[in-house]
Protein backbone atom coordinates (compact mmCIF):
# COMPACT_ATOMS: atom_id res chain seq x y z
CA UNK A 1 0.00 0.00 0.00
CA UNK A 2 2.63 2.53 1.09
CA UNK A 3 4.95 1.26 -1.61
CA UNK A 4 2.32 1.92 -4.28
CA UNK A 5 2.04 5.52 -3.06
CA UNK A 6 5.81 5.96 -3.01
CA UNK A 7 6.19 4.56 -6.53
CA UNK A 8 3.34 6.74 -7.71
CA UNK A 9 5.02 9.85 -6.34
CA UNK A 10 8.23 9.03 -8.21
CA UNK A 11 6.40 8.49 -11.53
CA UNK A 12 4.32 11.54 -10.66
CA UNK A 13 7.44 13.71 -10.35
CA UNK A 14 8.33 13.09 -13.98
CA UNK A 15 4.74 13.60 -15.13
CA UNK A 16 4.32 16.78 -13.06
CA UNK A 17 7.41 18.47 -14.46
CA UNK A 18 6.42 17.59 -18.01
CA UNK A 19 2.81 18.62 -17.44
CA UNK A 20 3.71 22.11 -16.19
CA UNK A 21 5.36 22.98 -19.50
CA UNK A 22 2.48 21.49 -21.48
CA UNK A 23 -0.03 23.40 -19.38
CA UNK A 24 1.82 26.69 -19.86
CA UNK A 25 1.93 26.17 -23.65
CA UNK A 26 -1.77 25.35 -23.65
CA UNK A 27 -2.71 28.48 -21.74
CA UNK A 28 -0.22 30.96 -23.23
CA UNK A 29 0.51 29.75 -26.78
CA UNK A 30 -3.03 28.33 -26.82
CA UNK A 31 -2.76 24.93 -28.47
CA UNK A 32 -2.30 21.28 -27.45
CA UNK A 33 1.33 20.63 -28.23
CA UNK A 34 1.64 16.95 -29.17
CA UNK A 35 5.40 17.38 -29.60
CA UNK A 36 5.91 18.31 -25.94
CA UNK A 37 6.65 14.68 -25.04
CA UNK A 38 9.54 14.70 -27.50
CA UNK A 39 11.16 17.54 -25.55
CA UNK A 40 11.33 15.12 -22.62
CA UNK A 41 12.91 12.44 -24.78
CA UNK A 42 15.40 14.79 -26.42
CA UNK A 43 16.23 16.36 -23.05
CA UNK A 44 17.03 12.94 -21.60
CA UNK A 45 19.32 12.09 -24.50
CA UNK A 46 20.96 15.54 -24.53
CA UNK A 47 21.98 14.82 -20.93
CA UNK A 48 23.28 11.38 -21.90
CA UNK A 49 25.49 12.88 -24.61
CA UNK A 50 26.67 15.68 -22.32
CA UNK A 51 27.45 13.11 -19.64
CA UNK A 52 29.60 11.12 -22.06
CA UNK A 53 31.46 14.31 -23.02
CA UNK A 54 32.03 15.36 -19.41
CA UNK A 55 33.30 11.96 -18.40
CA UNK A 56 35.73 11.99 -21.32
CA UNK A 57 37.09 15.40 -20.20
CA UNK A 58 37.05 14.84 -16.44
CA UNK A 59 36.66 11.16 -15.52
CA UNK A 60 36.55 12.04 -11.81
CA UNK A 61 33.27 13.91 -12.20
CA UNK A 62 31.30 10.72 -12.78
CA UNK A 63 32.31 9.21 -9.45
CA UNK A 64 29.13 8.58 -7.44
CA UNK A 65 28.12 11.40 -5.18
CA UNK A 66 27.43 10.08 -1.67
CA UNK A 67 24.61 7.52 -1.77
CA UNK A 68 23.53 8.40 -5.34
CA UNK A 69 24.32 6.43 -8.48
CA UNK A 70 25.58 9.52 -10.34
CA UNK A 71 28.26 12.15 -9.87
CA UNK A 72 28.64 15.89 -10.40
CA UNK A 73 28.82 15.26 -14.13
CA UNK A 74 25.14 14.33 -14.34
CA UNK A 75 24.10 17.53 -12.58
CA UNK A 76 26.14 19.50 -15.11
CA UNK A 77 24.63 17.43 -17.91
CA UNK A 78 21.16 18.17 -16.52
CA UNK A 79 21.74 21.93 -16.78
CA UNK A 80 23.19 21.66 -20.28
CA UNK A 81 20.30 19.44 -21.39
CA UNK A 82 17.80 21.96 -20.02
CA UNK A 83 19.46 24.72 -22.04
CA UNK A 84 19.54 22.59 -25.20
CA UNK A 85 15.90 21.51 -24.84
CA UNK A 86 14.89 25.15 -24.41
CA UNK A 87 16.77 25.94 -27.63
CA UNK A 88 15.03 23.04 -29.38
CA UNK A 89 11.64 24.35 -28.28
CA UNK A 90 12.51 27.84 -29.54
CA UNK A 91 13.77 26.40 -32.82
CA UNK A 92 10.56 24.44 -33.31
CA UNK A 93 8.54 27.58 -32.65
CA UNK A 94 10.57 29.68 -35.09
CA UNK A 95 10.63 27.12 -37.89
CA UNK A 96 7.06 25.87 -37.60
CA UNK A 97 4.61 27.13 -34.99
CA UNK A 98 5.23 30.86 -35.39
CA UNK A 99 4.46 30.62 -39.10
CA UNK A 100 1.18 28.80 -38.50
CA UNK A 101 -0.04 30.76 -35.49
CA UNK A 102 -2.41 32.86 -37.56
CA UNK A 103 -4.12 29.77 -39.06
CA UNK A 104 -5.65 28.79 -35.74
CA UNK A 105 -5.13 26.32 -32.94
CA UNK A 106 -5.99 23.14 -34.81
CA UNK A 107 -3.43 23.76 -37.57
CA UNK A 108 -0.89 24.11 -34.78
CA UNK A 109 -2.04 20.81 -33.29
CA UNK A 110 -1.59 19.03 -36.63
CA UNK A 111 1.83 20.60 -37.06
CA UNK A 112 2.83 19.56 -33.54
CA UNK A 113 1.65 16.02 -34.26
CA UNK A 114 3.81 15.97 -37.40
CA UNK A 115 6.85 17.42 -35.68
CA UNK A 116 6.43 14.93 -32.81
CA UNK A 117 6.72 12.01 -35.19
CA UNK A 118 9.65 13.58 -37.01
CA UNK A 119 11.49 14.38 -33.75
CA UNK A 120 10.85 10.94 -32.26
CA UNK A 121 12.14 9.18 -35.32
CA UNK A 122 15.16 11.49 -35.60
CA UNK A 123 15.95 10.51 -32.03
CA UNK A 124 15.54 6.85 -32.95
CA UNK A 125 17.79 7.41 -35.98
CA UNK A 126 20.41 9.15 -33.81
CA UNK A 127 20.40 6.86 -30.78
CA UNK A 128 19.02 3.50 -31.95
CA UNK A 129 16.22 1.66 -30.21
CA UNK A 130 18.10 0.00 -27.31
CA UNK A 131 17.28 1.42 -23.84
CA UNK A 132 20.16 3.28 -22.19
CA UNK A 133 21.09 4.35 -18.66
CA UNK A 134 23.07 7.20 -17.14
CA UNK A 135 24.89 4.91 -14.80
CA UNK A 136 25.58 1.20 -14.62
CA UNK A 137 25.84 1.35 -10.83
CA UNK A 138 23.15 -0.65 -9.12
CA UNK A 139 21.43 0.95 -6.18
CA UNK A 140 20.14 -0.84 -3.14
CA UNK A 141 16.76 0.46 -2.00
CA UNK A 142 16.77 1.69 1.58
CA UNK A 143 14.04 0.04 3.66
CA UNK A 144 12.21 2.78 5.56
CA UNK A 145 9.48 0.58 6.99
CA UNK A 146 9.50 -3.19 7.40
CA UNK A 147 7.11 -5.37 5.45
CA UNK A 148 4.90 -5.81 8.51
CA UNK A 149 3.82 -2.14 8.45
CA UNK A 150 1.29 -1.74 5.59
CA UNK A 151 3.39 -3.74 3.17
CA UNK A 152 6.59 -1.85 3.93
CA UNK A 153 8.29 1.04 2.19
CA UNK A 154 11.59 1.17 0.31
CA UNK A 155 13.11 3.77 -1.95
CA UNK A 156 16.50 4.32 -3.57
CA UNK A 157 18.47 7.51 -2.82
CA UNK A 158 18.07 8.44 -6.52
CA UNK A 159 14.29 8.33 -6.21
CA UNK A 160 14.35 10.57 -3.14
CA UNK A 161 16.66 12.96 -5.00
CA UNK A 162 14.19 13.13 -7.92
CA UNK A 163 11.25 13.77 -5.62
CA UNK A 164 13.09 16.48 -3.66
CA UNK A 165 14.42 18.26 -6.74
CA UNK A 166 10.94 18.20 -8.30
CA UNK A 167 9.48 19.97 -5.29
CA UNK A 168 12.33 22.52 -5.29
CA UNK A 169 11.88 23.19 -9.03
CA UNK A 170 8.13 23.60 -8.75
CA UNK A 171 8.43 25.96 -5.78
CA UNK A 172 11.03 28.01 -7.68
CA UNK A 173 8.74 28.23 -10.71
CA UNK A 174 5.83 29.23 -8.51
CA UNK A 175 7.84 32.09 -6.98
CA UNK A 176 8.98 33.16 -10.45
CA UNK A 177 5.45 33.27 -11.88
CA UNK A 178 4.08 35.02 -8.81
CA UNK A 179 6.69 37.66 -8.11
CA UNK A 180 8.86 38.40 -11.18
CA UNK A 181 7.74 40.88 -13.82
CA UNK A 182 8.17 38.33 -16.61
CA UNK A 183 6.20 35.73 -14.65
CA UNK A 184 3.37 38.17 -14.10
CA UNK A 185 3.38 39.08 -17.79
CA UNK A 186 3.04 35.39 -18.58
CA UNK A 187 0.08 34.98 -16.28
CA UNK A 188 -1.53 38.12 -17.63
CA UNK A 189 -1.12 36.89 -21.21
CA UNK A 190 -2.64 33.55 -20.28
CA UNK A 191 -5.72 35.18 -18.79
CA UNK A 192 -6.30 37.88 -21.42
CA UNK A 193 -3.80 38.33 -24.26
CA UNK A 194 -5.40 41.49 -25.65
CA UNK A 195 -5.55 43.25 -22.31
CA UNK A 196 -1.95 42.21 -21.64
CA UNK A 197 -0.88 43.71 -24.93
CA UNK A 198 -2.67 46.96 -24.17
CA UNK A 199 -0.84 47.08 -20.85
CA UNK A 200 2.45 47.12 -22.77
CA UNK A 201 3.45 43.47 -22.45
CA UNK A 202 5.42 42.23 -25.46
CA UNK A 203 3.62 39.02 -26.50
CA UNK A 204 6.62 37.61 -28.38
CA UNK A 205 8.78 37.93 -25.28
CA UNK A 206 6.16 36.08 -23.24
CA UNK A 207 5.92 33.31 -25.83
CA UNK A 208 9.70 32.92 -25.89
CA UNK A 209 9.77 32.69 -22.10
CA UNK A 210 7.02 30.05 -22.21
CA UNK A 211 8.93 27.88 -24.68
CA UNK A 212 12.16 28.25 -22.69
CA UNK A 213 10.55 27.32 -19.38
CA UNK A 214 8.56 24.47 -20.96
CA UNK A 215 11.67 23.10 -22.68
CA UNK A 216 13.81 23.30 -19.55
CA UNK A 217 11.24 21.58 -17.33
CA UNK A 218 10.72 18.92 -20.01
CA UNK A 219 14.45 18.21 -20.07
CA UNK A 220 14.56 17.90 -16.29
CA UNK A 221 11.59 15.51 -16.46
CA UNK A 222 13.32 13.51 -19.20
CA UNK A 223 16.51 13.22 -17.16
CA UNK A 224 14.49 12.16 -14.10
CA UNK A 225 12.76 9.49 -16.20
CA UNK A 226 16.24 8.37 -17.30
CA UNK A 227 17.47 8.21 -13.70
CA UNK A 228 14.47 6.37 -12.25
CA UNK A 229 13.52 4.15 -15.21
CA UNK A 230 15.60 4.22 -18.39
CA UNK A 231 16.07 6.20 -21.59
CA UNK A 232 14.15 5.07 -24.66
CA UNK A 233 13.60 7.05 -27.88
CA UNK A 234 9.84 6.39 -27.53
CA UNK A 235 9.62 7.69 -23.96
CA UNK A 236 8.18 10.99 -25.18
CA UNK A 237 5.34 9.17 -26.89
CA UNK A 238 4.69 6.96 -23.88
CA UNK A 239 4.56 9.93 -21.51
CA UNK A 240 2.33 12.11 -23.69
CA UNK A 241 -1.01 10.66 -22.58
CA UNK A 242 -0.15 10.89 -18.84
CA UNK A 243 1.01 14.47 -19.42
CA UNK A 244 -2.25 15.48 -21.08
CA UNK A 245 -4.29 13.68 -18.43
CA UNK A 246 -2.38 15.55 -15.71
CA UNK A 247 -2.86 18.93 -17.41
CA UNK A 248 -6.60 18.48 -17.85
CA UNK A 249 -7.00 16.99 -14.39
CA UNK A 250 -5.25 19.96 -12.82
CA UNK A 251 -6.93 22.54 -15.00
CA UNK A 252 -5.24 24.18 -17.99
CA UNK A 253 -2.80 26.93 -17.03
CA UNK A 254 -2.54 26.08 -13.34
CA UNK A 255 0.99 25.17 -12.25
CA UNK A 256 -0.03 23.61 -8.96
CA UNK A 257 -2.90 21.90 -10.80
CA UNK A 258 -0.43 20.31 -13.21
CA UNK A 259 1.74 19.20 -10.29
CA UNK A 260 -1.17 17.71 -8.38
CA UNK A 261 -2.55 16.20 -11.61
CA UNK A 262 0.85 14.68 -12.32
CA UNK A 263 1.03 13.07 -8.89
CA UNK A 264 -2.56 11.75 -9.16
CA UNK A 265 -1.89 10.24 -12.58
CA UNK A 266 1.35 8.78 -11.22
CA UNK A 267 -0.53 7.23 -8.29
CA UNK A 268 -3.21 5.88 -10.66
CA UNK A 269 -0.49 4.29 -12.78
CA UNK A 270 1.27 2.64 -9.88
CA UNK A 271 -2.05 1.46 -8.42
CA UNK A 272 -3.06 -0.01 -11.80
CA UNK A 273 0.19 -1.96 -11.91
CA UNK A 274 -0.79 -3.82 -8.76
CA UNK A 275 -4.45 -4.22 -9.77
CA UNK A 276 -4.43 -5.18 -13.49
CA UNK A 277 -0.72 -5.64 -14.16
CA UNK A 278 2.07 -3.56 -15.61
CA UNK A 279 1.03 -4.03 -19.23
CA UNK A 280 -2.07 -1.87 -18.83
CA UNK A 281 -0.28 0.94 -16.97
CA UNK A 282 -0.73 3.45 -19.82
CA UNK A 283 -4.50 2.90 -19.79
CA UNK A 284 -4.68 4.29 -16.24
CA UNK A 285 -3.99 7.79 -17.60
CA UNK A 286 -6.78 7.31 -20.15
CA UNK A 287 -9.26 6.28 -17.46
CA UNK A 288 -8.33 9.33 -15.38
CA UNK A 289 -8.73 11.51 -18.48
CA UNK A 290 -12.20 10.18 -19.34
CA UNK A 291 -13.37 10.47 -15.73
CA UNK A 292 -12.29 14.08 -15.40
CA UNK A 293 -13.81 14.99 -18.77
CA UNK A 294 -17.11 13.46 -17.68
CA UNK A 295 -17.18 14.86 -14.16
CA UNK A 296 -15.29 18.14 -14.20
CA UNK A 297 -13.97 19.10 -17.65
CA UNK A 298 -12.38 22.33 -16.38
CA UNK A 299 -10.11 20.37 -14.08
CA UNK A 300 -9.54 20.71 -10.36
CA UNK A 301 -8.14 24.25 -10.50
CA UNK A 302 -9.37 25.37 -13.89
CA UNK A 303 -11.38 28.48 -14.43
CA UNK A 304 -14.88 28.17 -15.75
CA UNK A 305 -14.96 29.05 -19.39
Amino acid at each position, binding site marked *: MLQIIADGLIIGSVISLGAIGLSLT*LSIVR*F*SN*FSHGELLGWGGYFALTALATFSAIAPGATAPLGPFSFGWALLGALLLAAALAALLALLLDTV*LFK*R*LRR*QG*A*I*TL*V*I*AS*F*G*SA*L*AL*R*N*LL*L*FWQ*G*GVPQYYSQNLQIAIPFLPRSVWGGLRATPDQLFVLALTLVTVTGLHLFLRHSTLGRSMRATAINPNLARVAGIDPERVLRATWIIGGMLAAVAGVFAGITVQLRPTMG*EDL*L*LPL*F*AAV*ILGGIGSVWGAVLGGFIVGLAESASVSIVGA*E*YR*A*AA*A*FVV*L*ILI*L*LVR*PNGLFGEKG
Partner: protein
Amino acid sequence: MPDFLIGWLSYGSFFMVFATTFAIIALGLNLQWGFTGLFNVGVAGFVALGAYSSALLTTPEVAGRWGGFGLPVAVGWLAAMGVSGVAGLLVGVVALRLRQDYLAITTFGIAVTIQLVANNATALTGGPFGVQFIPRPMQGWLGTGLPWTLAYLALALLVLGVVYVALEKLVRSPWGRVLRAIREDEYAAASLGKRPALFRLQSFVIGSMLMGLGGAVYAHFVGYIAPEDFLPILTFQLWAMLIVGGSGNNRGAILGAFIVWTFWAGAGSLLRGWIPQAEQARAAALQVVLIGVLIALTLVLRPRGLLGEEVAVSRHAGGDRPGP
Protein backbone atom coordinates in the same frame (compact mmCIF):
# COMPACT_ATOMS: atom_id res chain seq x y z
CA MET B 1 1.92 -13.41 -70.45
CA PRO B 2 5.64 -12.72 -69.89
CA ASP B 3 6.87 -13.14 -66.36
CA PHE B 4 8.01 -9.56 -65.80
CA LEU B 5 4.56 -8.35 -66.75
CA ILE B 6 2.92 -10.66 -64.24
CA GLY B 7 5.37 -9.53 -61.56
CA TRP B 8 4.63 -5.93 -62.38
CA LEU B 9 0.89 -6.45 -62.42
CA SER B 10 0.85 -8.24 -59.11
CA TYR B 11 3.04 -5.61 -57.43
CA GLY B 12 0.89 -2.91 -58.98
CA SER B 13 -2.38 -4.46 -57.83
CA PHE B 14 -1.03 -5.02 -54.29
CA PHE B 15 0.00 -1.41 -54.16
CA MET B 16 -3.39 -0.29 -55.47
CA VAL B 17 -5.37 -2.33 -52.91
CA PHE B 18 -3.45 -0.66 -50.08
CA ALA B 19 -3.91 2.78 -51.59
CA THR B 20 -7.64 2.08 -52.00
CA THR B 21 -7.99 1.04 -48.35
CA PHE B 22 -6.22 4.21 -47.30
CA ALA B 23 -8.53 6.21 -49.54
CA ILE B 24 -11.62 4.74 -47.79
CA ILE B 25 -10.18 5.66 -44.38
CA ALA B 26 -9.10 9.09 -45.64
CA LEU B 27 -12.69 9.74 -46.77
CA GLY B 28 -13.86 9.02 -43.22
CA LEU B 29 -11.27 11.38 -41.82
CA ASN B 30 -12.26 13.99 -44.40
CA LEU B 31 -15.87 13.86 -43.24
CA GLN B 32 -14.70 14.44 -39.65
CA TRP B 33 -12.03 17.03 -40.26
CA GLY B 34 -12.58 18.42 -43.74
CA PHE B 35 -16.32 18.95 -43.47
CA THR B 36 -16.90 19.23 -39.73
CA GLY B 37 -13.58 20.42 -38.29
CA LEU B 38 -13.24 17.54 -35.80
CA PHE B 39 -9.65 16.66 -35.08
CA ASN B 40 -9.18 12.90 -34.70
CA VAL B 41 -5.68 11.81 -33.61
CA GLY B 42 -6.75 8.22 -33.02
CA VAL B 43 -7.51 7.11 -36.57
CA ALA B 44 -5.30 4.04 -36.14
CA GLY B 45 -7.43 2.95 -33.17
CA PHE B 46 -10.70 3.07 -35.12
CA VAL B 47 -9.09 1.25 -38.06
CA ALA B 48 -7.76 -1.41 -35.68
CA LEU B 49 -11.20 -1.88 -34.11
CA GLY B 50 -12.72 -2.51 -37.53
CA ALA B 51 -9.97 -4.87 -38.60
CA TYR B 52 -10.09 -6.90 -35.39
CA SER B 53 -13.90 -7.02 -35.24
CA SER B 54 -14.22 -8.39 -38.74
CA ALA B 55 -11.29 -10.77 -38.27
CA LEU B 56 -12.62 -12.22 -35.01
CA LEU B 57 -16.09 -12.83 -36.44
CA THR B 58 -15.03 -14.42 -39.72
CA THR B 59 -12.01 -16.57 -38.80
CA PRO B 60 -12.35 -20.28 -38.06
CA GLU B 61 -12.31 -21.27 -34.42
CA VAL B 62 -8.97 -21.17 -32.61
CA ALA B 63 -8.30 -22.73 -29.22
CA GLY B 64 -7.57 -20.21 -26.49
CA ARG B 65 -8.95 -17.19 -28.26
CA TRP B 66 -12.40 -15.61 -28.24
CA GLY B 67 -14.22 -15.35 -31.55
CA GLY B 68 -13.65 -17.59 -34.52
CA PHE B 69 -17.30 -17.82 -35.53
CA GLY B 70 -16.59 -18.37 -39.21
CA LEU B 71 -19.28 -15.88 -40.26
CA PRO B 72 -19.47 -14.58 -43.85
CA VAL B 73 -17.07 -11.78 -44.74
CA ALA B 74 -19.90 -9.35 -45.48
CA VAL B 75 -21.16 -9.77 -41.90
CA GLY B 76 -17.64 -9.05 -40.67
CA TRP B 77 -17.46 -5.82 -42.65
CA LEU B 78 -20.82 -4.63 -41.36
CA ALA B 79 -19.77 -5.49 -37.81
CA ALA B 80 -16.50 -3.61 -38.34
CA MET B 81 -18.47 -0.49 -39.21
CA GLY B 82 -20.78 -1.07 -36.25
CA VAL B 83 -18.04 -1.52 -33.65
CA SER B 84 -15.96 1.43 -34.85
CA GLY B 85 -19.13 3.51 -35.00
CA VAL B 86 -20.01 2.66 -31.40
CA ALA B 87 -16.46 3.59 -30.32
CA GLY B 88 -16.87 6.87 -32.18
CA LEU B 89 -20.17 7.45 -30.41
CA LEU B 90 -18.63 6.90 -26.98
CA VAL B 91 -15.65 9.17 -27.66
CA GLY B 92 -17.93 11.76 -29.23
CA VAL B 93 -20.34 11.83 -26.29
CA VAL B 94 -17.45 12.40 -23.86
CA ALA B 95 -15.34 14.86 -25.83
CA LEU B 96 -17.42 16.67 -28.46
CA ARG B 97 -19.20 18.96 -26.03
CA LEU B 98 -15.85 20.38 -24.83
CA ARG B 99 -13.30 22.61 -26.55
CA GLN B 100 -11.76 21.25 -29.77
CA ASP B 101 -8.40 20.18 -28.35
CA TYR B 102 -10.08 17.78 -25.94
CA LEU B 103 -11.29 15.65 -28.83
CA ALA B 104 -7.72 15.43 -30.11
CA ILE B 105 -6.44 14.36 -26.69
CA THR B 106 -9.28 11.86 -26.11
CA THR B 107 -8.91 10.22 -29.52
CA PHE B 108 -5.17 10.02 -28.95
CA GLY B 109 -5.90 8.30 -25.65
CA ILE B 110 -8.32 5.77 -27.11
CA ALA B 111 -5.83 4.81 -29.83
CA VAL B 112 -3.15 4.23 -27.17
CA THR B 113 -5.60 2.12 -25.14
CA ILE B 114 -6.73 0.05 -28.14
CA GLN B 115 -3.07 -0.60 -28.96
CA LEU B 116 -2.52 -1.77 -25.37
CA VAL B 117 -5.51 -4.12 -25.48
CA ALA B 118 -4.48 -5.48 -28.89
CA ASN B 119 -1.02 -6.23 -27.54
CA ASN B 120 -1.97 -7.64 -24.15
CA ALA B 121 -5.46 -9.15 -24.18
CA THR B 122 -4.16 -12.36 -25.73
CA ALA B 123 -7.41 -14.25 -25.15
CA LEU B 124 -9.28 -11.73 -27.28
CA THR B 125 -6.82 -10.38 -29.84
CA GLY B 126 -4.07 -12.98 -30.02
CA GLY B 127 -1.62 -10.54 -28.42
CA PRO B 128 1.52 -9.54 -30.32
CA PHE B 129 1.03 -12.48 -32.71
CA GLY B 130 -2.28 -11.06 -33.88
CA VAL B 131 -5.03 -12.89 -35.74
CA GLN B 132 -4.18 -15.29 -38.53
CA PHE B 133 -6.15 -17.10 -41.23
CA ILE B 134 -8.53 -14.23 -41.88
CA PRO B 135 -10.64 -15.51 -44.79
CA ARG B 136 -10.02 -13.91 -48.14
CA PRO B 137 -13.32 -13.56 -49.99
CA MET B 138 -13.60 -15.25 -53.42
CA GLN B 139 -10.39 -17.18 -52.86
CA GLY B 140 -12.35 -20.41 -53.08
CA TRP B 141 -12.72 -20.10 -56.84
CA LEU B 142 -9.94 -17.69 -57.82
CA GLY B 143 -6.98 -19.30 -56.04
CA THR B 144 -4.18 -17.31 -54.43
CA GLY B 145 -2.53 -15.77 -57.48
CA LEU B 146 -2.91 -12.68 -59.58
CA PRO B 147 -6.57 -13.22 -60.57
CA TRP B 148 -7.60 -13.08 -56.92
CA THR B 149 -5.55 -9.93 -56.23
CA LEU B 150 -7.14 -8.24 -59.22
CA ALA B 151 -10.63 -9.35 -58.15
CA TYR B 152 -10.02 -8.05 -54.63
CA LEU B 153 -8.77 -4.77 -56.08
CA ALA B 154 -12.03 -4.52 -58.04
CA LEU B 155 -14.00 -5.21 -54.85
CA ALA B 156 -12.03 -2.60 -52.88
CA LEU B 157 -12.48 -0.04 -55.66
CA LEU B 158 -16.19 -0.81 -55.68
CA VAL B 159 -16.39 -0.15 -51.93
CA LEU B 160 -14.41 3.08 -52.40
CA GLY B 161 -16.75 4.10 -55.23
CA VAL B 162 -19.88 3.46 -53.16
CA VAL B 163 -18.43 5.35 -50.19
CA TYR B 164 -17.40 8.25 -52.42
CA VAL B 165 -20.79 8.60 -54.12
CA ALA B 166 -22.62 8.32 -50.80
CA LEU B 167 -20.41 10.95 -49.17
CA GLU B 168 -20.73 13.33 -52.11
CA LYS B 169 -24.51 13.02 -51.84
CA LEU B 170 -24.33 13.55 -48.07
CA VAL B 171 -22.11 16.62 -48.06
CA ARG B 172 -24.14 18.26 -50.82
CA SER B 173 -27.39 17.58 -48.99
CA PRO B 174 -28.85 20.02 -46.46
CA TRP B 175 -27.17 17.89 -43.79
CA GLY B 176 -23.74 18.57 -45.32
CA ARG B 177 -24.46 22.27 -45.52
CA VAL B 178 -25.30 22.32 -41.82
CA LEU B 179 -21.97 20.62 -41.06
CA ARG B 180 -20.03 23.29 -42.91
CA ALA B 181 -22.12 26.03 -41.36
CA ILE B 182 -21.29 24.68 -37.89
CA ARG B 183 -17.62 24.41 -38.77
CA GLU B 184 -17.51 28.02 -39.93
CA ASP B 185 -19.72 29.61 -37.30
CA GLU B 186 -21.24 27.45 -34.63
CA TYR B 187 -23.35 30.23 -33.09
CA ALA B 188 -24.83 31.34 -36.41
CA ALA B 189 -25.83 27.75 -37.16
CA ALA B 190 -27.30 27.32 -33.67
CA SER B 191 -29.29 30.53 -34.06
CA LEU B 192 -30.93 28.94 -37.12
CA GLY B 193 -32.16 26.11 -34.93
CA LYS B 194 -29.49 23.49 -35.74
CA ARG B 195 -28.01 21.62 -32.81
CA PRO B 196 -24.24 21.69 -33.38
CA ALA B 197 -23.52 18.90 -30.89
CA LEU B 198 -25.90 16.47 -32.62
CA PHE B 199 -24.57 17.12 -36.12
CA ARG B 200 -20.96 16.86 -34.95
CA LEU B 201 -21.69 13.57 -33.26
CA GLN B 202 -23.37 12.16 -36.41
CA SER B 203 -20.45 13.21 -38.58
CA PHE B 204 -17.91 11.80 -36.14
CA VAL B 205 -19.71 8.45 -35.92
CA ILE B 206 -20.08 8.06 -39.71
CA GLY B 207 -16.39 8.94 -40.16
CA SER B 208 -15.41 6.35 -37.53
CA MET B 209 -17.54 3.71 -39.30
CA LEU B 210 -15.68 4.34 -42.56
CA MET B 211 -12.36 3.94 -40.73
CA GLY B 212 -13.54 0.60 -39.39
CA LEU B 213 -14.62 -0.46 -42.87
CA GLY B 214 -11.18 0.48 -44.23
CA GLY B 215 -9.58 -1.62 -41.50
CA ALA B 216 -11.74 -4.63 -42.41
CA VAL B 217 -10.96 -4.30 -46.14
CA TYR B 218 -7.27 -4.24 -45.20
CA ALA B 219 -7.54 -7.27 -42.87
CA HIS B 220 -9.26 -9.51 -45.41
CA PHE B 221 -6.72 -8.64 -48.08
CA VAL B 222 -3.60 -9.36 -46.03
CA GLY B 223 -5.20 -12.29 -44.18
CA TYR B 224 -3.23 -11.53 -41.03
CA ILE B 225 -3.32 -8.59 -38.60
CA ALA B 226 -1.15 -7.71 -35.62
CA PRO B 227 -1.02 -4.70 -33.25
CA GLU B 228 2.01 -3.32 -35.07
CA ASP B 229 -0.16 -2.72 -38.17
CA PHE B 230 -2.03 0.00 -36.29
CA LEU B 231 0.68 2.17 -34.74
CA PRO B 232 0.32 5.98 -34.51
CA ILE B 233 2.26 6.20 -37.77
CA LEU B 234 -0.90 5.01 -39.54
CA THR B 235 -2.84 7.98 -38.12
CA PHE B 236 -0.06 10.19 -39.28
CA GLN B 237 0.02 8.79 -42.82
CA LEU B 238 -3.71 9.40 -43.12
CA TRP B 239 -3.36 12.96 -41.96
CA ALA B 240 -0.58 13.44 -44.49
CA MET B 241 -2.90 12.07 -47.19
CA LEU B 242 -5.72 14.41 -46.26
CA ILE B 243 -3.54 17.49 -45.88
CA VAL B 244 -1.56 16.92 -49.06
CA GLY B 245 -4.66 16.06 -51.10
CA GLY B 246 -6.73 18.89 -49.70
CA SER B 247 -9.18 18.54 -46.82
CA GLY B 248 -12.80 19.39 -47.39
CA ASN B 249 -12.65 17.79 -50.83
CA ASN B 250 -13.48 14.09 -51.26
CA ARG B 251 -11.53 13.79 -54.51
CA GLY B 252 -8.62 15.50 -52.74
CA ALA B 253 -8.70 12.88 -49.98
CA ILE B 254 -8.58 10.05 -52.54
CA LEU B 255 -5.83 11.74 -54.58
CA GLY B 256 -3.86 12.39 -51.39
CA ALA B 257 -4.14 8.72 -50.40
CA PHE B 258 -2.63 7.58 -53.69
CA ILE B 259 0.09 10.27 -53.79
CA VAL B 260 1.27 9.91 -50.19
CA TRP B 261 1.22 6.10 -50.41
CA THR B 262 3.37 6.31 -53.56
CA PHE B 263 5.71 8.74 -51.80
CA TRP B 264 5.87 6.50 -48.72
CA ALA B 265 6.52 3.29 -50.64
CA GLY B 266 8.99 5.02 -52.94
CA ALA B 267 10.93 6.65 -50.10
CA GLY B 268 10.95 3.29 -48.30
CA SER B 269 12.46 1.34 -51.16
CA LEU B 270 14.99 4.11 -51.93
CA LEU B 271 16.13 4.26 -48.29
CA ARG B 272 16.31 0.48 -48.06
CA GLY B 273 18.59 0.42 -51.05
CA TRP B 274 20.71 3.28 -49.75
CA ILE B 275 21.13 2.29 -46.10
CA PRO B 276 22.98 -0.97 -45.27
CA GLN B 277 21.04 -4.05 -44.16
CA ALA B 278 22.09 -3.79 -40.52
CA GLU B 279 20.64 -0.30 -40.21
CA GLN B 280 17.15 -1.04 -41.54
CA ALA B 281 15.42 0.14 -38.35
CA ARG B 282 17.07 3.50 -38.86
CA ALA B 283 15.94 3.59 -42.48
CA ALA B 284 12.34 3.13 -41.31
CA ALA B 285 12.81 5.98 -38.82
CA LEU B 286 14.10 8.26 -41.56
CA GLN B 287 11.09 7.36 -43.71
CA VAL B 288 8.80 8.70 -40.98
CA VAL B 289 10.87 11.87 -40.62
CA LEU B 290 10.44 12.48 -44.36
CA ILE B 291 6.66 12.23 -44.14
CA GLY B 292 6.64 14.52 -41.09
CA VAL B 293 8.56 17.09 -43.11
CA LEU B 294 6.09 16.60 -45.99
CA ILE B 295 3.14 17.49 -43.71
CA ALA B 296 4.93 20.50 -42.23
CA LEU B 297 5.94 21.76 -45.69
CA THR B 298 2.41 21.39 -47.06
CA LEU B 299 0.99 23.24 -44.05
CA VAL B 300 3.42 26.13 -44.47
CA LEU B 301 3.54 26.35 -48.27
CA ARG B 302 0.17 25.12 -49.50
CA PRO B 303 -2.21 25.08 -46.56
CA ARG B 304 -5.21 24.16 -48.72
CA GLY B 305 -3.57 21.04 -50.16
CA LEU B 306 -3.42 20.03 -53.85
CA LEU B 307 -7.17 20.13 -54.38
CA GLY B 308 -8.55 22.59 -51.89
CA GLU B 309 -12.13 22.76 -50.75
CA GLU B 310 -14.57 23.96 -53.37
CA VAL B 311 -15.81 27.42 -52.56
CA ALA B 312 -19.49 27.18 -51.86
CA VAL B 313 -21.40 30.22 -52.99
CA SER B 314 -25.16 30.20 -53.09
CA ARG B 315 -26.63 30.41 -56.56
CA HIS B 316 -28.88 33.12 -55.19
CA ALA B 317 -25.91 35.29 -54.22
CA GLY B 318 -26.12 37.02 -57.62
CA GLY B 319 -23.48 38.88 -59.57
CA ASP B 320 -20.56 37.17 -61.24
CA ARG B 321 -18.18 36.59 -58.40
CA PRO B 322 -14.55 35.94 -59.21
CA GLY B 323 -13.44 32.40 -58.40
CA PRO B 324 -11.17 31.57 -55.47
